């Protein structure tokens, strides 16, 4: 039933909070290598859906399958180790540590797995990991802030660093939760540029977003969520022309 090129399959997911039906009958197939956007007005259930995918919330019914493995009920670190990395709405970073160390930590997680009692080796002698992190920082254009404390970065730079932290793990699936939320125009644009740049790397991406501007220029496929249901599915052009979407979303905000 799962197509060979479908890497993430959200199958028939329902989520109820008490009487509230937050997600109903969600069926979503994300194909390998594509950028799949999930859009919808505030309160449509986007974040709930993301949290179900990432295992933070258990669905009331239904399953989430990633590359043949059921994600439901797994811990966040297990899901990461399967090859899924996540960018948060507000960047989750190690504020007290240097930018370089911020990027080295995920590289170590990729190499050493969920736990390794590696306390005899000096971090300074991890030249491989260090070089990898430096390359990654160069990729995202942050070499100059390498030794700064991450907490002192601008919001846009924090986001860029967080992306670098995810990309260094070479995830098979990258989840982005409103990557430009709360950003200035300038930061939004640099973030979109960066996302476009990494698009060519061929990793699968799921973007949760309510800013249409961001989505139409990035996504291969868009699913529109309204009141906990998927009301439309297709290429950006198909979705743009869909009257239901116009009514539920575009009409409402524009």
């Amino acid at each position: 039933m799962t197509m060979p090129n479908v890497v993430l399959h959200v199958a028939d997911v329902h989520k109820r909070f008490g009487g509230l039906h937050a997600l109903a009958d969600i069926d979503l197939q994300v194909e390998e290598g594509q950028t799949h956007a999930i859009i919808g007005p505030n309160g449509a259930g986007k974040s709930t859906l993301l949290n179900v995918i990432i295992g933070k919330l258990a669905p009331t019914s239904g399953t989430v399958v990633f590359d043949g493995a059921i994600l439901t009920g797994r811990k966040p670190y297990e899901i990461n180790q399967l090859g899924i990395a996540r960018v948060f709405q507000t960047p989750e970073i190690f504020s007290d540590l240097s930018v370089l160390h911020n990027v080295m930590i995920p590289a170590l997680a990729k190499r050493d797995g969920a736990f390794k009692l590696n306390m005899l080796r000096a971090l300074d002698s991890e030249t491989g990991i260090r070089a990898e992190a430096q390359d990654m920082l160069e990729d995202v254009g942050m070499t100059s802030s390498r030794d700064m404390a991450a907490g002192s970065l601008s919001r846009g730079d924090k986001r860029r660093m967080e992306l670098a932290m995810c990309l260094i793990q070479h995830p098979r699936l990258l989840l982005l939760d409103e990557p430009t939320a709360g950003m200035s125009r300038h930061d939004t644009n640099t973030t979109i540029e960066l996302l476009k740049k990494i698009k060519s790397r061929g990793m699968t991406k799921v973007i949760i977003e309510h800013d249409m501007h961001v989505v139409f220029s990035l996504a291969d496929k868009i699913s529109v969520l309204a009141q906990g249901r998927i009301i439309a599915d297709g290429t950006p052009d198909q979705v743009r022309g869909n009257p239901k979407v116009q009514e539920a979303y575009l009409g409402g905000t524009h």
Partner: protein
Amino acid sequence: MLAMSRNDLLLFLGFTIAVLAMPIWLQPFGAAYPDLLQRFTIYAILAVGFNILFGLTGYLSFGHAAFFGVGSYAAVWSFKLLSMDAIPAMAFAIVVSGIFALLIGYVSLRRSGIYFSILTLAFAQMSYNLAYSVLTPITNGETGLQLDLADPRYLDRAFSAAPAGLPSPTLLGAPLTGYAGFYFCAGFLIIAFFIAQRITGSPFGMMLKGIKSNQTRMNYTGFNTKPYTLAAFVISGMYAGLAGALLAITDPLAGAERMQWTASGEVVLMTILGGAGTLVGPVIGAWLIKYFENIFSAINDSILTRFFAFLPEGADHVAVTIASKFVGEGWFLTLGLVFVLIVVFLPGGIMEGVRRIVGLFNRSGKTPRHTPAQVQPAE
């Protein structure tokens, strides 16, 4: 594999020299006698170990003294049952306190933040209460566990006849009293510092700092944070066990009051005062507290009267009365006040103060490389 960076090596060498030369440079301060020097090193080990947990992971344990006490009991039992030699006593103490820490840590670390603090406090109080009551056969209750002429000491008896009188701890036959005792403890402090330094600079240490900084990110980055914190907890418990054993080696008896929460609080004080999260800070904190405890508790009214004798009649009495509240028995009042002031104005401890002063002089230079170590709970 054990290569160290230049800075680390310098720090380690400097520390080693400072510790070994303590009998010399503490002379002018009137603190260069073995008994006090031993306490300096022992409490420094305790604080360095506590810092591996609190300083690196941000988990504030309020029950650390339990491992200290367990270490002492274990060492004394080793003296009683096996031998007066220090090595089996320490090995036994480290193993027992490590197991104890593994059990308590496994349960306590299922929660974080203040719940973790309260869980550790609860476990420590339980241990303390039990040591005073039901466990009297093991702890000898209020009297404390002491050596006895009738102790079997199987290992010692196997090799030699029982000596007359109570024996005292030895190292391969050499007595560990006075300066020998100090250098013995100092050696362990240097080893303990070295290990702490290695841990701090290792990938493992970086993971612990990551846990302190942002546990959510650690989880979503693919780390199972529990074994990391548990490892830090156990290591830190073993440090406390080692310190407890050394205390029993310098003075072979163990009492339950060593496990009381006030003792746990004292370790926290030392670490905060010096600077949590730094390597040298906890050592300085331990030394300062033990030094001033020693000085302040020894001051009495007659010393104060002599000190304030230059004041006019009447004023000197007032000065003595006020000052006497802060010394002698009142030493803890001073300690409490200093502690409050430190937490309010200098939460990074003395090390942060030093950094700020250095920063003032380097204002024109580049921006400081280190961010101030902050006391943060693990959320």
